[in-house]
């Protein structure tokens, strides 16, 4: 699974409309059943609606409906200063507030040409990888919950997540709404005691992943319900802008940590897991393997972390007015490519503030993956995308 496959050939034999959802003709008799799954369906991870048309149990049409959680985050950010949006980014993907912070800080640092001290870069990597582990563990837990394994697997994931959230709380003051990163560094330094506690958590993690995986890998229900289900072809995945574990489960070797080498990711040795069946099981497995790679990165980072300041002393905090210009900064968030596009007109507020939400764009192909499957599998396919509605609707 970890062997890199060949890059996608761009000279595909393209027919008209090859990247559109196929049309499935109903073969049963009688009328189609139109069903609104959501916005209060328990499997929708929040408030999300899928308008499905069913022929018997078979899905022949599926239209996602968004906007139930829309609060125009972008407009709010344009009416306030750059720094004041930092706590608001926590609320985008509330499972991964630290990676949201990092993506925004990175975009602003690109906009003003700001440097980040080495210790802060290490802290960012440590926190981002912790975030990735707890996100992937919970997303697998939720997937199993949707398969009917009520509660128990999710609690295994949450037990581990709790340890990581405790670390976040003792460093940043908050379990989920961390508001930790600043333009040019991080808000507070990590004490040696915190680093020791982090090392202790990391030392326990491989055992958790082994245990979690041994319960699941050969589980008959899991394999029966996920293998060969919800296939996403790599050509379509690339064309539809799918990113993150979902793209890599479709066998495309594209990890922004490797491609952009933002921060200090060029210093760490890690592999990019790839799927070769492109189904739900691969998405689950890629997340499992990514957790292992993240543990490896954490071990290296916690070993090498240097001393020094966590904030660039030349960083301007008061009267922060970037020169006119624009920048697009992106990172590999646990759910995919999280980007921020900023335009400055020289005033203290951003002229344009745009979030590129991976959760929303990964839903582009939901219909393509679900067509022809039973309605019970729609829940699983949707769960394997791994979204958070706070980011989808913004």
């Amino acid at each position, binding site marked *: 699974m970890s062997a890199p496959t060949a*890059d*996608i*050939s*761009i*000279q595909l034999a393209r027919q008209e409309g090859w*990247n*559109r959802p196929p049309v499935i003709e109903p073969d049963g008799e009688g009328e189609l059943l139109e069903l609104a799954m959501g916005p209060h369906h328990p499997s929708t991870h929040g408030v999300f609606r899928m308008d499905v048309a069913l022929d018997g149990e078979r899905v022949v049409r599926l239209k996602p409906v*968004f*906007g139930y959680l*829309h609060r*125009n985050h*972008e*407009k709010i950010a344009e009416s306030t200063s750059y720094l004041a949006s930092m706590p608001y980014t926590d609320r985008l993907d509330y499972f991964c507030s630290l990676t949201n912070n990092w993506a925004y800080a990175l975009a602003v640092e*690109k*906009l*003003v*040409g700001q440097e980040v001290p080495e210790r802060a870069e290490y802290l960012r990597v440590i926190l981002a990888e912790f975030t990735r582990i707890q996100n992937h563990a919970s997303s697998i837990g939720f997937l199993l919950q949707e398969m009917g394994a009520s509660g128990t697997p999710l609690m295994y994931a949450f037990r581990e997540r709790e340890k990581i959230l405790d670390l976040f709380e003792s460093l940043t003051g908050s379990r989920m709404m961390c508001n930790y990163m600043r333009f040019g560094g991080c808000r507070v330094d990590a004490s040696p005691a915190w680093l020791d506690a982090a090392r202790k958590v990391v030392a326990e993690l491989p055992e958790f992943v082994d245990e979690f995986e041994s319960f699941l890998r050969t589980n008959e229900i899991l394999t029966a319900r996920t293998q060969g289900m919800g296939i996403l072809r790599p050509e*379509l995945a*690339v*064309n*539809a*802008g*799918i990113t993150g574990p979902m793209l890599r489960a479709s066998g*495309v070797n*594209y990890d922004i940590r490797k*491609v952009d080498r933002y921060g200090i990711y060029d210093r760490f040795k890690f592999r990019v897991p790839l799927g070769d069946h492109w189904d739900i099981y691969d998405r689950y497995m890629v997340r499992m393997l990514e957790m292992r790679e993240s543990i490896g990165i954490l071990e290296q980072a916690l070993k090498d972390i240097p001393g020094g300041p966590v904030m660039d002393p030349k960083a301007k905090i008061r009267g922060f007015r*970037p*020169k*006119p*210009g*624009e*920048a*697009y900064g*992106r990172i590999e968030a646990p759910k995919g*490519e999280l*980007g921020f*596009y900023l*335009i*400055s007109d020289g005033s203290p507020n951003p002229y*344009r503030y*745009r979030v*590129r939400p991976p959760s*929303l*764009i990964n*839903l*582009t*192909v939901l219909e393509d993956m679900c067509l022809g499957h039973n309605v019970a599998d729609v829940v699983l396919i949707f769960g394997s995308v791994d979204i958070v509605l706070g980011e989808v*609707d*913004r």
Partner: protein
Amino acid sequence: MKTVEEIKAAIETAVPGAKVDIVTNPGPSGQHSLLLGAQTAATVATFLRDDPELALDFLSNVSGVDWPDREISEKVKVPKQVVKTVEGVEQTVEEMVEETRKRVEPGYLEAVYHLYSMARKHGPVVLRMRTANRLDSVKLPSFTPIWRSAELQEREAFDLYGIVFEEHPDLRRILMWDGFKDHPMRKDYVEPDDFEYEPTAHDEVLARAQAHKTAAGAGITPQETGR
């Protein structure tokens, strides 16, 4: 990775008659962009995706930007007939006088696309397209038939900015509800003058409610509803 100048030259050789301009970015990020003419944009985009050297197969980000009409005042020197007393005699002399002139630069809506290459692992290449104005001619060609990832993002730009993407297969509102009238991300958007529930409405809220009452004649104040 080619520079924007090289990409521009490549487009001009491959797509004859293509209108491409370079928009420089004065900031330190150095992400310059290419401004495409709407007529040939779809052909240019297909070339950018299929050219083996550029191979921009991944459209990452689509954003709308609103640039309202700008009033620019500038000082110009104009010749003017001035009556002056020169050596005790009144004369009409032509002199250069500074005058402040105001002109309105028309606004436009802009769609910005960030492209990367997954096959060659480079990017970003930034494309922009501009509408003729902000009111009645707001059409731009859609890139959704070329990159499917534009599907939901162009719907968002349509919803929040009012850019109409032609040939988009499913152009509907996405975040706001279907009956909504305005485009809330525009710079001149005014929030509707409705008031929200407050346990004891007072001051500003009451004043706004009163304005409703006089204007519409049927406005309801919080007291009347017994809130």
